């Protein structure tokens, strides 16, 4: 709460929704951290003796298995707790990646908006285009090499002191380049893009999932940070820092970033909820983390066929996803209201 001033903090605590959201999130974090410590069974081992009925069905909630067992006769409670850990690690890490990239792009884009820009050689554009075509055609290595070559051509055009006809091309400023990139990225449906990337990996692990989610979800943050930066960069203290000759990176880091941090935190908090859902969707559809690692999405998938005879297999992960998403969304909305002076 250190980013909140005393008035904002007061507004936050007065908001019942925010308190409930914080409560849910705190419970989720505590469950993820402490839950496995209460485990009396291994999350990966089937118990055919006590975890199955005589008919071969999973047993329901009991003193032995608090949330019953799953279709492989494993402890649902322990798997839910490990799933919570995984969901939180993936959601928070992916949000951090997304926030860092989105903030950096937004800051640069907003700060350089309206600048004269630099030359981008036609040759570089053509080679980059060929690179994208090669990637889409399935020649990833060739495509990658062509994209690197395109970057080299662009860099050469910038650093060469003399103008060469072969490196001639239109002028493009950083803001236009980055924001068109964001436009292109936003034109892809998020989950479809993530699923395609997830399916492209040879073997999906925690790191591939969190990088996939993180690298595909920074676009919205970049837009918001850019808009806020456009306002902040014209304020007097930024002008003063420029007049004092401070380097751009320092101005951005010391003067602009702290002033756009509020919306970024609000956005990030809500994004954690989206990441939990995205990870669950990926696992549910089979392009997430491979079994037997417990994930809420995969637990839902495994339990769906037994929704009538063993409803706890759907209820447990379903409720966990519901309250986690609700918690982070309420917390995000509470932070937004707390940081909005008009709420006074």
């Amino acid at each position, binding site marked *: 709460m250190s980013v909140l001033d005393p008035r904002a903090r007061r507004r936050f605590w007065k908001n019942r929704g925010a308190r409930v959201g914080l409560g849910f999130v705190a419970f989720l974090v505590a469950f993820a951290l402490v839950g496995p410590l209460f485990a009396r069974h291994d999350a990966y081992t089937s118990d055919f003796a006590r975890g199955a009925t005589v008919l*071969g069905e999973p047993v329901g909630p009991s003193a032995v298995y608090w949330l019953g067992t799953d279709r492989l006769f494993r402890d649902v409670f322990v798997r839910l707790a490990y799933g919570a850990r995984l969901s939180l690690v993936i959601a928070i890490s992916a949000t951090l990646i997304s926030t860092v990239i989105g903030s950096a792009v937004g800051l640069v884009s907003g700060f350089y908006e309206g600048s004269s820009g630099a030359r981008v050689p036609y040759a570089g554009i053509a080679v980059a285009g060929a690179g994208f075509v090669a990637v889409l055609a399935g020649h990833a290595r060739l495509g990658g090499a062509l994209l690197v070559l395109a970057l080299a051509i662009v860099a050469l055009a910038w650093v060469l002191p003399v103008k060469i006809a072969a490196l001639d091309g239109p002028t493009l400023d950083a803001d236009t380049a980055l924001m068109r990139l964001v436009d292109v990225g936003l034109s892809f449906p998020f989950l479809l893009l993530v699923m395609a990337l997830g399916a492209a990996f040879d073997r999906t692990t925690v790191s591939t999932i969190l990088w996939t989610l993180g690298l595909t979800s920074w676009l919205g943050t970049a837009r918001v940070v850019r808009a806020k930066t456009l306002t902040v960069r014209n304020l007097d203290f930024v002008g003063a820092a420029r007049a004092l000759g401070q380097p751009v990176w320092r101005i951005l880091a010391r003067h602009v970033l702290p002033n756009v941090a509020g919306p970024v935190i609000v956005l990030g908090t809500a994004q954690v909820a989206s990441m939990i859902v995205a990870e669950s969707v990926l696992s549910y559809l*089979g392009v997430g983390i*491979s*079994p*037997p690692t417990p994930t809420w999405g995969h637990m839902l998938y*495994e339990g769906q066929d037994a*929704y*009538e*005879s063993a*409803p706890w297999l759907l209820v447990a992960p379903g409720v966990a996803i519901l309250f986690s998403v609700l918690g982070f969304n309420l917390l995000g909305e509470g932070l937004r209201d707390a940081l909005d002076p008009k709420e006074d």
Partner: protein
Amino acid sequence: MRSIRKRTSALVACAALLGCQEPPPSPLPAAGNAAPVRGGELRLASAFDIKSLDPAVASDALTGEAIELMFAGLVDFDDAGHIVPDLAERFERSEDGTTYRFFLRDNIFFHDGSPIRAEDCKRTIERALHPDTPGSFSLFYDRIAGFEDYQNKKADHLAGVVVEGERVLAIHLREPDATFLPAFAMQILRPVCPSAGDRYDDTWTPCGAGPFKLESWDRGRTLRLVRFDKWWQPGKPYLDRITYSYSMNIVTERYKLETGDLDTDRELSLPDTFRYQNDPRWKLLGEYDVIPSINGEEMNVEMAPFDNVEIRRAVAAAIDRDQIRMLKTPSLIPLYRVLVPSLGGDDPNFPAQKHDYAAALEHMRRAGFPYDPATGKGGWPKPITYPVYKQGLYELSAQLLQQQLAKIGLRLEIKVVSFPTYLMMTKRRGTTAMAPAGWQQDYPDPNDFFEPIFTTSAINDEDSNNGAFYSNPRLDDLVVRGRRELDAAKRKAIYDEADAIVCSDAPWAMEYQYRYYGVHQPYVKGLRQSAVWPNYVRDVWLDKPRALAMRRAPRGILATLEGLLR
């Protein structure tokens, strides 16, 4: 009143949340006739769809159900799997076993009204086995004389298929082949109307000589068959019409069965299976349908660590088939050898694969990778990639297998892939060390469980049926001998020996075969359990009370709503 409603809603919500399963409603009544009654419409459904109704190319079991009704063969299987005459009134085999002669019945007709002659049977066989006809069934018939020349387009006709009169067809083989007759009784070579022409054409309107003929086929939705009045068996079939609804949600299927809008349901979820089995009113209306098949783990003998026979034996001994059975208790039957019980694989003294943890550890030691369960040290040092596609049971059994093999020091890394990727990975040489595999009977003969999956001739660099890439000259020789041998007792001994070799060399670790549970309304009579054909309804008749028989199917808005729901 409001409070009652509130309470009821709360109870319903509680029931839904806690899964308090409602018992199924009472079955609909039967009229009580002892003798078969003619007429009525049998309504069936499936969650899946059919692609083609041409017997020359159709391969899946669901399509086979409809083809069994629309197309009749010269011979067919009886309920026990024995071959019996159908359109042929009799058949004979020559002394040396290289010629089969079929004598057609008098006054048999195609659905278009034209008479069936031996010439039509020859045309049908040449059409189905022509090299341009898609599918890989022709290999079942490669012992027919002249087959190679015909397949290589060096001959316009199959020399071994000879018309010896309007009603006599002779088929000459280049060597005795005990598998010919069962393969001939399959649906692939069943006579098709003259409109089918000499060559396969996917625009042809299916027309055969079975007890039911095509009325309409709305692809992806409905297939309607009507009684063929010129069917050779007097008084049969009993039904006027059979309607299949495809692509129907299995929950919808179950509700429709309970409301009487479907007459049978063979695609029950596991909870619903228990629900009907535990209800005394429905218990006697259900039955299992065993599809002869083998399912297990395929180990690539050309790739480490399964190039070491001791490791393969360790896997076969480490798998606890009773635990796997518990993943879907009523549907899985543990399997310990290649030959399924219906093909004679029921000898309790046979040296089959079995769960023996101590033996599994011993095999690992002999392989040079001893594993100490107490410390968890030892075993094969690298993880083994294990591909599965998204199919509920496979994903579950993969995780259980992972647990079982970890206990002998083999670490599996499960990789969920799409079905095409799974096929590519498991059938391409040098790609996958271990994967789940299954084989379903094409025709009821032991050869069908050896030649296509365990012999050297079944190995290809791409799309290999022998996914274990297992090659054993002794087994190859036994399979050839088994195919040529016509004496049943000698054949059994040959295939038992082949089975023992496979169990010992363990290119596969056998696990289970599958069976389906289905229920029907009490008025559905004449359902028969066939050893070959699933959901065999040729001789079904309906014993509906008059009021029930007069009930009409929903029309107009209701039918539209049903369609939307589906």
